Structures are given as structure tokens and as C-alpha cells.
């Protein structure tokens, strides 16, 4: 069996235009992890069950392990590596660190991307809304409590920052 011919796929990742040679059956997760060296997004099940591979595409969380790389041609993709501003962590990342929202840290990149997409659309979500938004991301360590607290803290800090900005 010959490996399928590769084509060049181009998308915007974390603000940069990136090109990557992919086969028709290459997933977005494989392209990110093995093609572009963005190993922050994780593979937990490779079939869309666990959410560890979640990235944000054009503002919505998607499961990179069941998204074909070629289907992302020209799209805007943000991974966990794209949240921080240079060496400064994103306030959501910082909140996860402060609250103990990451234990083993393997589901964390995916959880962060779902939470980030939520806060972009809904800056002050209720706990029920957070739970719903994160229901596609399995975490085996925390029992979710510290994750909820982290998202709430990030939302609070953000609203305080916004209020300060206005005054």
C-alpha cells in the first residue's frame, strides 16, 4: 500500500498563516501536533469522545481529532498555545493555575479552549452554562469543581477589568 499523496494545506493558526503537507485522511490534530509541532492539543481517544483535542475554529470549539485537516483550509484556528500573550498567560490560564483547575493537565488544553470559546460569547456564564459548555471535555482528575471555579474566577476578573476600563 502506498501512502496517499500529500497536498499543502494552509490555515491561520494562532495568528500566523501556516502551511502543512497533509494527506486527505490527515486529521487537524495530526497536522497540528506532528506537522506544525503544536503538541499542546492532546489525543486522548482519537474518535471524538474525550475532548482533549478541542481547538477553536472561527470562534467555535471543534474536535481536532475528527476534523480533517483539508476541511480547515483558510480557517482561523486557535490552540492552547495561542491563548497566552507572548510569555504572559491568558487570564483564563492564570485562573486555572490559581484555582488548581489542572491536575495531570492532559485534558486541560481542550478544557481551556471550550472555556475560552464560552467566555468569548458569554462573558459572565452561570455555573450551569459552564457545565454545559464543558460537557464535551472529560476530566478524570478534578471532579470538575476546580475547573468551574477557575472559569468563574476568569469571568469575574474579566468583568472587573472591563469595569475598570470604562471608569
Amino acid at each position, binding site marked *: 500500500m502506498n501512502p496517499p499523496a500529500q497536498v499543502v494545506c494552509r490555515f491561520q493558526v494562532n495568528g500566523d498563516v501556516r502551511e502543512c503537507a497533509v494527506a486527505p485522511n490527515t486529521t487537524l490534530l495530526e497536522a497540528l501536533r506532528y506537522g506544525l509541532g503544536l503538541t499542546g492539543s492532546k489525543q486522548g481517544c482519537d474518535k471524538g469522545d474525550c475532548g482533549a483535542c478541542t481547538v477553536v475554529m472561527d470562534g467555535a470549539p471543534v474536535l481536532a481529532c475528527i476534523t480533517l485537516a483539508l476541511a480547515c483550509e483558510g480557517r482561523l484556528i486557535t490552540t492552547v498555545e495561542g491563548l497566552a500573550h507572548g510569555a504572559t498567560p491568558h487570564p483564563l490560564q492564570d485562573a486555572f493555575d490559581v484555582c488548581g483547575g489542572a491536575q495531570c493537565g492532559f485534558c486541560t488544553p481542550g478544557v481551556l479552549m471550550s472555556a475560552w470559546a464560552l467566555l468569548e460569547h458569554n462573558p459572565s456564564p452561570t455555573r450551569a452554562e459552564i457545565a454545559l459548555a464543558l460537557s464535551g471535555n472529560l476530566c478524570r482528575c478534578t*471532579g470538575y469543581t476546580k475547573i468551574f471555579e477557575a472559569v468563574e474566577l476568569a469571568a469575574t476578573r474579566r468583568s472587573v477589568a472591563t469595569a475598570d476600563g470604562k471608569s
Partner: protein
Amino acid sequence: MSRAKDEAARVPDPRVPSGRQMPEENRLTPPVWPGGRTAAPGTDFSVIGRRNRKLEGLAKVTGRAVFADDLSLPRMLHGKLLRSIHAHARIRSIDPSAALAMPGVHAVITGRDLPAWFGIIPWTEDEQALCEEKARYVGDAIAAVAADTELAAEEALRLIRVEYEVLPAVTSIDEALEHPEWKVNEKAREGNISKHVHLEFGDVDARIADSDEVIEGEYWYEGSTHAPIEPHCAIADFDATGFLTLYSSTQVAHYLHRDLARVLGLPTQRVRVIQPVVGGAFGGKSEPFSLEFCAARLSMDLGRPVKILYTREEVFYAHRGRHPMRMRYRTGIRRDGTLTGVDAKIHIDGGAYSSFGLVTTYYSGQLLSAPYKMEAYRFDSTRVFTNKPCCGPKRGHGSVQPRFAFECQIDKLAEAVGLDPIEVRRRNFIGENSRTVNGMRVTSNGFLECLEQVERASAWKERFRRMPYGRGVGVAGSMYISGTNYCIYPNEMPQSGVQLKLDRSGRATVFCGASDIGQGVESVLAYIVAEELGLTLGDIRVVAADTDLTPVDLGSYSSRETFMVGNACLDAARRLRGLVVGTLAEAWGCAPAEVKLAGGIASTARDAERERMSVKEAFQRTEARHGTLGSVGWYQTPRLGGDYRGGTIGASPAYSFTAHVAEVDCDPETGFIQVKKIWVAHDCGRALNPVAVEGQMEGSAYMGFAEALFEEQVFKPATAAHGAGLHHGPSLLDYRIPTSLDTPELESLIVESVDPEGPYGAKEAGEGPLHPSVPAIANAIYDALGIRCDRLPFSPPHVLRLLRAGDARAVWQKARGQRSGHVPAGARG
């Protein structure tokens, strides 16, 4: 005092030389520090007990933490394992020629290439990396391929031709016992018996006969698996000098190091095991697996690095999870609530291999003897082999199942004598500084406070037996070990070692074999060094779990890390602290005790202006005075346990205690149980970092809840028309682990009993808080519906069956009448 019988005692194990134990006076004794191990170095703590960040937290949230599969080495090949499609089959032949002919395929290995037997417990080495003669479960590994890509390796697997002779499969405890001739594991001494333990303490039958009420119950605990989100992954790199480096998502780098060397025929000093960041383990990565041996063998044959990453399906086959257990309990109580005798008969479904099964079999009885006094206790536990993936240690190893049964028994006994179940638990409290019926030493014990906390927080008195039909609360308690005296292979060396380096840059580097699997043991090391040497956390670097660089720690299992690694680290840090403080005291002309090191500053209270310098400068002065600064520290358990064979299994230098109250909301029409909330009170001795302790408590309670309601690692029975031993759904869709929507609200209540031997008084928090989840939910369901859920999981079909089996309403009504003497208003519905 106690009468101990153990069938194995009659057959002395030839591999344990008599008199091998070092005489007491020659054994390592940890140093005694001024103020003891529990005290703060200065007047109060500056780091310990604070809600600090974890050391590796920011790396994890920014995607920079490097897990095994994130590593890639030059010229690296990818390996895949071929797995058996039969539950039990003799391997007649394996023909790899077509696979080898495929472009991009570099090697195929089979059982003949890795013939050595191994096993985590040296007395039960009954596994091979690849089955040579026989496959023992669907998914047992029989060949491995190395190819240019993962895809090519997977294609090649399909081209390997295996000729099987299918054998009768054993898929249940009863089949294993009834058909000893269908031998699953040839290493078993007798039939399909993996291990049998019978121990008796006191006259159980007489104590039970002397009871006012006796409850007998049969319980079934279904198997479940760890399902860490990171699948197992290993990369082996054998170089031209004959040196093997293995990166692996393991939680026991040291044991892996030993077994790798042995199975591959390499001297241990030519093997290096490195544990990258591990994405969850829960016991599921606490022994060597086929992928590690196969990656190493392939790398040795090919002279190139080889990576093997398990698929999610393979993680379910690797398993080593919770043993299914069938438990019969007979327990007596007197009218005043005193527990009398406890009689347990337990059958354990072990799967195809031994794993930690010897320990599991002991733990199933040994770890039940606190927090309650019992006058007499007997357990008879039998682990059997079956043609299913091997069970092993999952969070709360061996003791979660009996704890479920026993705490349900206590609930029934309390009702039988008309006492509140919290009150019964209180009345039987074993106390601090006590000894259990099976000879275990209990020192600190905050169980009463745990009970009080959950009673108060849950408004127990207003709600128990007082809520409307369908809603209820239940309570349960437990204890767990903070590491165990029983070292997996016999030796007299420390259980944990730490090396500490200070230098003139003002940085401290801690080297330790400890395995961080997300619980934060690397942070524990940093907190202790920061506390003792007055450093800020950013000034400390931890190098962990790299067998070339770090002194041995036995790894992350038995909830041993905080206690044992913490003590080793405290030892190393106090040695250097002594030098630094001594140097400054000399310079300032004060007593060493007057020197304070905190927040990067060395100072005294008497002259804060002149007697003050940075810790960095203090290190420089100390280095000038004493030479290059380094120290070692270690921890070894004191001699503990009962004076009988197996008496050290379950012996721990400190026990943690937990109490839960669970609240449920049940739908009697559908059988759907919703757990609304679990209050978790846990005595962790002292919380070195309360955020981390709460995280362990919540994660444990969640995992217990998951086992109670959702998870089943189950297989097609041998009686099925086809597919005997096939896993019911080896995926995270079919094997239902709770999502953020399923998980109840969890409230952590930390209790600090300050253990006399723990580092600053700390004990474990990682496994204990799982135990009471399951029985607390079961007891809450009884309060809500009047049915006793004695079998896991409490799924809707199971609950409906129980509701239809008898008059649950009448039982429910009666339980209420008994408590308050009148029918509560809500009962009319």
C-alpha cells in the same frame, strides 16, 4: 492475642530466606529533628498550608508541559501491538512474512523475542511482554511491529497470520472455581486460584453469637477501570554504547527500571527510565506494560528509537483496574451500638494475571479494621484467574469494594438497633493512638471530626429520614494508608530518597525519584524546601523520576508520596538548613533558633535592620564556610504491622480518615438516580497545600460516584453464542465516565489531625476520600426509596428491578416511623 491462620503460611516461600530481615537495631532510623517533624522551622509557616500554585501549573495551562507522546526523536519508528481476538487460545504459529515484506516495515517480534517472565510482585511473575504459548484474554498482546509510520505499523498488523487453537474461556468467578481444569494461568499452584488468604482475629463466631442483632448481606462490586485521559505511551532509545533510555508514562519509574533490565537482559546500570509529564494514572500505570518491553526490544534490534502509543481501546485492555468482588458479610451489633464480630467471605475476579493480586487479596480484608473498633474479625479472600484483562490497583486498591459492603452493613445494623448511622459510627470510633484488631498501629485519627463536619454541613439531623419519597441522604466512613511498609521487593533500603543542591545563585534543586501524576508531589518537594530554606517557590527547581539523575523513590502508589517523599525531603532540607542557620548564627552571635528564613530573606527578630540579608547571600556565606552545598535525605518506615504472615500488608506509618454524606434525588418511575451533592470530610493530617488537597478529595469523590452510578468494565460471558470475553465497549463513549453535567456538587471539608510522623503532620489525601462515596450513595438511596442497592452500578434498570421486587414504599415508611415515631409530612406523596 490474635489468632492468625494463613494457608500460605504452611508452605514457606523458598524465595524469602528466613532471617532475611535485618535486626531491628541495624535498621535505618530517621533522624529526630528539634521540634519534631510536624513543627514549623521558625515561629509559623510561610509556605506550608497556603493556597499556593503548583510548580508545573503554568506549563500545563499554556500547553508547554511535555507528555510522552509529545516527544519525538530523530529517526524514530512507530510500533504497534497485535492483540489476541480470542479470550483463551493456544498460539499454534505466527507468520509475519507478509508484514515484513511490506514497505516501511522494519521488524516484527513475537513472544520468542521476549521470553522472560515478569510481574510487579516478585513472587508472582506470570506475564510475558508478548504471549509465547497462549493468549489469555481478548486483547492479550502476541506480536509487535515497528514501521516508519503509525499507519504503516497498523497495516502491517493485519498481515501477520496467527493460527490459534481456541480453548474454553473462563469469564466469571464461578466458572473459574467450577472448572479448575480450564486453567487460565499455568503459574497458578492450584486450578484457577491466584491467591487465598484466611485470617482470623479473636473468636468471631462467639462474638457474633453474643450480639443483639446480626445482619448478613451479599454484595457485588462491579469492575471498573482508571481511564486516564492520556493513553499509555513509551519511547525506547537504545544507543551504540549499549545503553537503553526509555521515556514512559509510568507512575513507577523504579520498578519499571528493574523489570526492563531483567526482561531485556541488560544490566540495570545500562538502563535509564525517564517519566515525562504523566496525564493521569490512578493506579493504571503502576506496573510495566507490554509497550515498554516491546519498544525497548525493537529499539535494541533496530538501533533506532521506537515509540509505541496505545489506542484508547488498548488502554481498556491494559486495564489493571478495580477488581470485581463478590462479598458476603455477617456482622453483629449490640443494642448500645457496639460492633461485635465481623465475618467476611470474599471472591475476587482477577483477570488473566497476578499483577498486584497478592496484595489486593490481603487488602480486601486487612484495610477494613478501622476507623471502627471490632471485637473480632475474620476474612477469607480468594482471588481467581479469568480470561479477561488483568485487574490491579485502582485508586483505593483492594479496599474500596469491602468498604462499600461494610458501610452498607453498618447502615443496616444501625437501623436494626434503632440508632442514627452517624451515632453508630461515632460509638465505635477506634480512637487515636490505638491498635486495630488485626494489629495495625493507628496514631493520629481525625475521624470523629470528619463525622461532625459532614453531619453539620449536610444538615443531617434535619434531613435524614425526613425528606419526601425519592430524596435522601446517606453517610459512610473509611480509612486508608499513607504508603505501606510492605515493599514490593524485599530490601532494607529507604523507601524514598532525596538529594538537594543549593548554590550561590540562590537556587535550590531537588532531585527525587518521586512520580508526579497530577497529584502534585513535585510541588510538595518544592513547598518543603521553600519552607525550610526560606526560598520563594520560583527559586526551586525539581528534577523528578529520572533514574539516571534522581535517587530512588518507589513511586506513586499506595498514597505514599506526600508522607514518604515529604519526610525524605524534610530530612535533606533540614540538614542544609542547619548549615545555613548555623553560619548566620555564628556571624550574628545569636542562637541558631533565632535565625529566620522566609520569603527569600534571612533575619532575626531582635535586630531586623542589621541582622538581615537575602537567602542567596546566606547561601554564599554558608558555601564559603562549609564548601559546596548539598545534602541527602531519606525515609524508611518504622517496623509496623501484625506479628503474623501478611501482617505487614496494610501496615502504614499513618492512616487517613474520611466521612461522606451524599444526597440523592431519585425518580421512582425511571429508576434514575441523581446525586445532588457529596460532602467530603477528610483527615489529611495537615494540608501542605489546601488547593491540592481539595483537588484530591473532589477527584476521589467524583471517581467513587462514577463507580457507583456509571462505570462497568464488563465482558461477554463464556455462555454467549460468540465473542466470549469481548469487552462491552472499549471506548470513552461506551464506557461512561461522568461529564461535567453528570458530576454532583462536591464540597471539601479538610480535617487536620497533625500526624506525629508525617511531614509537618501530613498524611495522604489521594485515595482515602474515594472510599465512602459508593456506600454513602447506596445508603442515601435507601433513605430516599427504601431499597438496598447491594450491587454496583446503581443504574436505572437495576434500581427499577429492586423497586419492583418488593414493597419499597412500605420499607421506606417503616424506616421513617422507626426514627421519629411519626410519619413526616412529605411521606404522603
